[in-house]
């Protein structure tokens, strides 16, 4: 069976010469929820930006359901890979929520009733069907994060890539987002250093450290290995125990 996401020997250096990835390998099957763990500066966001062709690898390759990420395939790749950015204010740029959710599917060529239905479906999936007319800056931060998720769900992606989905969320918004993510029938790669959240939502985790994948296994097992965590600057919150 073809993996939804296949990353092979991915290496990348920024134009200023700083190298962020040194040959990362990752394979994700349909329906999996995987956490990509790593300390700040490990290259997590850089890896995420390769998955839909925003960055072009210096070496190695990325394929999405068998389709290589190349210039020629970019439009289809961006439909298949839904990237939710860390700051919803970066993602939500149109005057109303409904317009913003419609932006992705409209870029795919949808119009009229079909487009409207996509918008409603995506807003419903994140539990905010009544917010279509609101301006993004009038929403709470938690609502904006969920609307940002809806803008990507409206494109019906094959894999959802979430960059630090819990950053700046209060505990209630965090739980609401978890409920939404658990209710979705979609493959998820969650980039985070929020280890309890990874444990709650993702049966499998990989650890990215210094630009390579250094561990790959069941989240519970990885988090129960204090030596492994310490070696890669990962720490469980005070008082938190995996057992």
């Amino acid at each position: 069976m073809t993996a939804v996401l296949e990353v092979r020997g991915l290496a990348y250096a920024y134009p200023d010469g700083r190298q962020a990835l040194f040959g990362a390998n990752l394979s994700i099957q349909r329906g999996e929820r995987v956490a990509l763990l790593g300390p700040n500066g490990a290259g997590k966001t850089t890896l995420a930006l390769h998955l839909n062709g925003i960055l072009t690898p210096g070496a190695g390759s990325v394929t999405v359901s068998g389709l290589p990420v190349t210039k020629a395939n970019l439009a289809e790749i961006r439909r298949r890979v839904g990237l939710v950015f860390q700051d919803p204010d970066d993602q939500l740029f149109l005057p109303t929520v409904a317009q913003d959710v419609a932006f992705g599917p409209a870029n795919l060529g949808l119009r009229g009733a079909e487009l409207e239905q996509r918008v409603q479906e995506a807003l419903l999936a994140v539990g905010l069907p009544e917010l279509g007319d609101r301006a993004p800056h009038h929403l709470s931060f938690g609502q904006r994060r969920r609307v940002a998720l809806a803008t990507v769900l409206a494109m019906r992606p094959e894999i959802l890539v979430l960059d630090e989905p819990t950053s700046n969320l209060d505990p209630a918004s965090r739980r609401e987002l978890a409920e939404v993510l658990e209710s979705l029938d979609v493959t998820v790669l969650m980039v985070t250093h929020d280890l309890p959240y990874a444990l709650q939502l993702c049966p499998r985790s990989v650890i990215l450290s210094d630009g390579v994948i250094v561990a790959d296994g069941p989240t519970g097992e990885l988090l129960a290995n204090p030596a492994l965590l310490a070696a890669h600057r990962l720490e469980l919150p005070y008082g938190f125990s995996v057992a």
Partner: protein
Amino acid sequence: MGAGSAYLEAGLSPAGRSHSSPIQAAPAQVKLVALIGFVCAVVATPSMTMWPFVVQLLVLAVVAGLARLNPGRLLRGLAIEVPFVAFAFAMPFLATGERITVAGLSVSVAGLWGAGTLLAKSTLGVLAALILAATTQRAEFVAGMQRLRLPSVLVEILSFMVRYLDVIAEQWHRMAIARASRGFRARNPTSWSALSGAVGTGFIRAFERGERVHLAMLARGYSGALPEAIGAARAGRPVEWGWAALLVATSLAVTSLSWGLA
């Protein structure tokens, strides 16, 4: 009527909301055209006569009444006109020509008329713009300009401004609080270097945000132009254009009549 209008009629656009009066409900492009027509008529009115301005003020009062606007708030909005007022007050003293004495001060007759006309014209223009602003959502302006076929780059820039003005203002405010929390007070030119540093940082942050927004747009398939279905206003109904035309025609008629009498 393209496919986009079905999307809009389903209530997904700002224009689809329920409105408290026909003026609020009219699409922004109709109101913009009416405003421009009205202001042109006001500007073209000859000086040395005051009655046309009174009639034009009545026209605005009717519009404001129909829109159920709070007169107090409109008048407070006129504060933006203060620089013009200051200039208008200087005119009778600075202008040359025949002079008369008013309350012991020698003033120019032409200057008095000039000041009066300037005040009347700017007040009417500002009032009309305030009425437009009070009856139109920011997002509707953008949609209306798109409908008027303004260049799409211009409309997109305005739409980004509408969206990010608050974000950037809030960021600037947070930076100001952080400066003040460390004892900074901008009181004399020695604080300018700190302020200029803050302006520079603010600019770089806005620039970087622009880059991140662009990346996020690319990630959703942006290819250089906003899809037409996004955010276009509904077309103005004939009756709405009719009312706008009546408003402009009335003020133009007043202007031509005053030229005829002058």
